[in-house]
């Protein structure tokens, strides 16, 4: 299951989806808006996506994870729009028979998302704003 959404991410329904009788392990990664970046206080984040391509790139990542590890179920949900401190920006969930595969696949998915998926975040500080990673 792959989704972009402007609504809050629902962990319970993601978990319900991941549950299957063959699963011995579920690894769930949550990316959350924290209150500072390099000790500069953050007020909120604004996430923007090139939706069509973002879904396509997430699909490629999931397909590659599926090739590398024996996944039973997976879910990738990324939120867009304005997010406040403590809100969840991304949820990656992977269900496998054995735990090493769940950890490896989950980590691969989030690491690769941050490299290739056309989603951008702007940090809004009390005294300015900045697109993350945009500047040299």
């Amino acid at each position, binding site marked *: 299951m792959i989704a972009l959404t402007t609504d809050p991410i629902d962990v319970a329904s993601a978990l319900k989806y991941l549950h299957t009788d063959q699963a011995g392990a579920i690894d769930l990664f949550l*990316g959350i808006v924290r209150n500072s970046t390099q000790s500069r206080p953050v007020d909120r984040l604004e*996430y*923007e*996506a*090139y939706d*069509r*391509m*973002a879904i*396509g790139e997430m699909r490629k990542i999931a397909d590659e994870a599926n090739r590398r590890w024996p996944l039973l179920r997976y879910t990738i949900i*990324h939120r867009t729009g304005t997010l406040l401190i403590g809100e969840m*920006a*991304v949820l990656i969930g992977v269900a496998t028979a054995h735990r090493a595969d769940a950890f490896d696949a989950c980590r691969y998915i*989030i690491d690769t*998302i*941050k*490299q*290739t*998926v*056309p*989603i*951008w*975040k*702007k940090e809004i500080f009390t005294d300015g704003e900045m*697109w*993350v*990673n*945009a*500047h*040299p």
Partner: protein
Amino acid sequence: MKDTASVLLFGITRDITGQSAVSVPLPEGACVADLLSQLYRQYPDLSGIRSILVAVNGEYAESDQVVHSKDEIALIPPVSGG
């Protein structure tokens, strides 16, 4: 025949140009690199961005890929999802 291409802009590129899409002249046979050069001329502030990739029809494109006016073209500044 001289055509134009519409280029989708996101993130910092949208902020710099003040637009979510811009039109650029697209000579026949022009490639991704030509399109980027044209955009840097039109919007010199784009050169302050660490890197810009181009997507054609929703896929990352190499700089020598030829683009057509009917393609969906987008600038991809450094991503920062997650």
